[in-house]
């Protein structure tokens, strides 16, 4: 078995929970689709910069943290 074949069994995906939370917060804050998209980037960027959430050890965010982030994001627009 070569390397390529082994990788097939690896399995990931954009997590539905995360996406649904972003979508719900975007709706709550009346974000247009491009702003919602930028918000997803913003959250990912915050994580990459070390500003992690407390949901899990990957630094994902809780609902309250995401709401807080949305406010921060929109205030700086």
């Amino acid at each position, binding site marked *: 078995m070569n390397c*390529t074949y082994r*990788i*097939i069994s*690896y*399995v*990931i*995906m*954009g*997590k*539905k*929970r*995360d*996406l*649904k939370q*972003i*979508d719900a917060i975007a709706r709550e804050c009346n974000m*247009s*689709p*491009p702003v919602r*998209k*930028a918000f*997803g*980037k*913003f*959250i*990912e*960027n915050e*994580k990459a910069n070390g500003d992690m959430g407390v949901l899990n050890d*990957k630094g994902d965010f809780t609902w309250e943290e995401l709401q807080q982030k949305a406010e921060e*994001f929109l205030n*700086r*627009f």
Partner: protein
Amino acid sequence: MVITSVISTKQVIQPSIEKIIPCIIQPMIGEICHQVSFSYGDELGLDFGEMSPYDHPKLKHLLKGSWRFGARASPWAVKHHDQTLVVTAEADTDEQTAIAKEIVKQLEHKKLLDMTIEADTLQLTMSFEDSYQLILNPELDDDSGLACWELFMPTEQLLTVGPGYFWSCTSIS
């Protein structure tokens, strides 16, 4: 709200999605995938066409394409010369995520040659130069309410496919 749900259980005629979607995205064929990136929730994003910075002050160092494809939560696979390099699905250890993210980066700087959608399964196939393919296999029975994929277009429109056979194209300005 009661009325809405009654209507939605009625037999709904399916649109000819396999003809309509390729027609709408036709101008994207021939564009280069300049960037493969990931958004929150490990959503795969492909940026094509003219690249420009985000407007938000904290994202100014990041570029976005005039065509922005988002795979939402749909599982995807990358093929090269008909050989599958990676398949993604429900589970997601950090290590697996990292590997898949690395592999799909091979699509960067490749020209998009074709994009087809399968009428029954809604399988989406993006064919790139050098015999690369990106394949999305939406879960038709998924009840998350999330779209299968979306495409921001330079016409200031957002094309959305899913959930199910629903599609829409709306103004984003």
